[in-house]
């Protein structure tokens, strides 16, 4: 199946040179870097409406988080008790105020910061740690692998939500703790994945070729193999962003998450739970934010995955089906 995409690319390359071997007399004119697999993936990604929507949504959220200060005149931690529980739209409070008179929109914006940072940082840390451990484990194998994989087993065998609850209940919570704890309990899947890739990759002939020309083990792991294992890692990272945001909200919901004056969507949700009966909108906003961002991140992840999957055509399936009907002469 890979041939298909290879074939395609070859054609692009052969067109100008197919007519015989190049003459050495011509001074070599190196052409520009051709579209690599990433470029193709990019193109496919851009053809995927869900993925693009996801990307746009995420970008909007990221920008909103970055420019929160300019988007709302209100301070998320500042509330005037006289303005408490205003309905949406009053006095420039687009979404109203909460029971302390704090602007809900401002709080959502600033929550975006923390929730997204948690999402991205947890993904980053756990991907870096997981990749490193997975790569070393998978490449070297033997006792290194045994030790790391037992560790992964142990970590995986502990109910993670419980571990999170336990650690947070014991040590209290700060944004930085939260990130560390979530990363600490989520690197294993990446490690497994990367190890799996490396177990396969290390058997590739180009690894032996690299050894044969004297590349060191670290050179092979980081220079030669990392880029080959990167596709699943990237996909996993995107999905982990969503997972971390959800985990944070779950822990916050249990009262073990972010503490004032910091705020996150999960924190807002858990606060809003009190007002579920009087002011259900308060719970709706952060809930929807979580839903939308996690959806967006998943769309992006899927987009990347499909983009990197050589089996997936850049042409939408619908169009393919239409064509198929049009061209086929055979009975159905």
């Amino acid at each position, binding site marked *: 199946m890979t041939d298909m995409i290879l*074939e395609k690319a070859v054609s692009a390359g052969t067109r100008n040179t197919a007519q015989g071997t190049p003459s050495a007399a011509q001074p070599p004119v190196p052409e520009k870097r051709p579209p690599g697999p990433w470029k193709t993936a990019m193109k496919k990604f851009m053809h995927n409406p869900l993925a693009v929507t996801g990307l746009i949504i995420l970008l909007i959220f990221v920008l909103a988080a970055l420019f929160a200060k300019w988007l709302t005149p209100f301070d998320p931690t500042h509330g005037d008790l006289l303005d408490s529980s205003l309905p949406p739209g009053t006095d420039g409070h687009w979404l109203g105020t909460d029971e302390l008179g704090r602007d809900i929109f401002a709080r959502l914006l600033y929550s975006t910061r923390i929730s997204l940072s948690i999402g991205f940082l947890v993904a980053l840390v756990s991907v870096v740690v997981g990749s490193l451990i997975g790569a070393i484990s998978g490449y070297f194998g033997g006792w290194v692998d045994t030790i790391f994989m037992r560790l992964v087993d142990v970590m995986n065998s502990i109910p993670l939500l419980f571990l999170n609850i336990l650690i947070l209940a014991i040590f209290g919570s700060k944004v930085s703790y939260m990130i560390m704890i979530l990363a600490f309990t989520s690197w294993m899947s990446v490690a497994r994945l990367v190890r799996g890739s490396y177990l396969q990759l290390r058997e590739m002939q180009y690894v032996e070729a690299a050894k044969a020309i004297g590349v060191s083990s670290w050179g092979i792991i980081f220079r030669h193999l990392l880029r080959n294992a990167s596709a699943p890692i990237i996909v996993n990272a995107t999905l982990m962003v969503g997972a971390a945001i959800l985990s944070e909200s779950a822990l916050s919901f249990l009262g073990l998450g972010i503490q004032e004056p910091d705020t996150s969507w999960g924190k807002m949700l858990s606060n809003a739970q009190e007002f579920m009966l009087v002011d259900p909108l308060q719970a709706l906003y952060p809930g929807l934010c979580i839903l939308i961002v996690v959806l967006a991140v998943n769309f992006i992840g899927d987009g990347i995955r499909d983009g990197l999957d050589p089996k997936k*055509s850049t042409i939408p399936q619908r169009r393919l089906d239409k064509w198929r009907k049009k*061209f*086929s*002469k*055979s009975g159905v």
Partner: protein
Amino acid sequence: MAEKILEIRSLTTGFLTDKGLVKATDRISLDIEKGKTLCIVGESGSGKSVTALSVMRLIDYAGGIIEDGKVLFNGQDLVSKRQNEMLKIRGNKITMIFQDPMSALNPVFTVGEQIAESLRIHKNLPEKEAWRQAVDMLRKVGIPSPEIRAKQYPYEMSGGMCQRVVIAMALACNPELLIADEPTTALDVTVQAQILDLLQQLKQEFKMSMLLITHDMGVAAEVADRIAVMYAGALVEEGTVAEIFDRPRHPYTIGLLSSIPGLEGERGGELYTIKGSIPPLSNVPSGCRFHPRCPYAMDVCKTNEPPLRESATGHKAACWLDDVGEDDPRPGKPNRAETKVTIGSRPEVTQP
């Protein structure tokens, strides 16, 4: 002329890709006489498997589209059949074996079950009887202690064994036509010899016809009655084994044969090479699709597609050099007399 079991007429099969519809076979016409073996040879990607899958109508599942043409099996057109109707033919009258025997067998069923399944479905045999015949079949393809082997799973067998199982499966229903797509490529030479030998034997015994696909000229030479050479989706030459090997007409066939180092005679000298490589199907050259690599390419080759011309003896080739006459640069001087007879040009579909 002997009775034909299979007549492929101007078969065009394509795949939908980003570049639109890519034709993997382009107006292929082939015939197989009852009891004979036709071998399709050609380099990787030339469309051999696609031809076979089209005949089986399995190409529909591989995402391919039969765009045009007919496949007449005993006079019935398979292309216009519905998949439902194909079920009675496929696996029963026409069977197929594939290149990699290990992956062609379902890993979770015993080999006996897999053979018996065909029998139960097509011959409506009761379970016991189907099993008995399956074991019998295994014995026929030379598997020692077949009663035990039938109860084993594919992973418990070697490659050669698996290929025998696949062959047994294909022959179980006593097919009229066996299509073998590179049946020995995945096997060791000594085992390959065993399997080829076995196929020859069984062909006699079961009185069937065979379509053998290979890229090994040696295999073709040994097994075939007639050989068809494909290049980039098109049929470029077809004839008896002797005609193809001794008097090849198409420069591609000539190049192919000359590129193979022999086991006898001179060695160590420079090998003949065909420059360049097979073009991608999405970008087939105009005119004769071989012309960019052809050492004898003429102007006409670049623009006009040569028709497939048949000699009196049935040796077909598609090359403009057949028109050149005395200046023919081809080595070995193909039989002039043959080339005079032109039966038809390729763009037309010859109706029987």
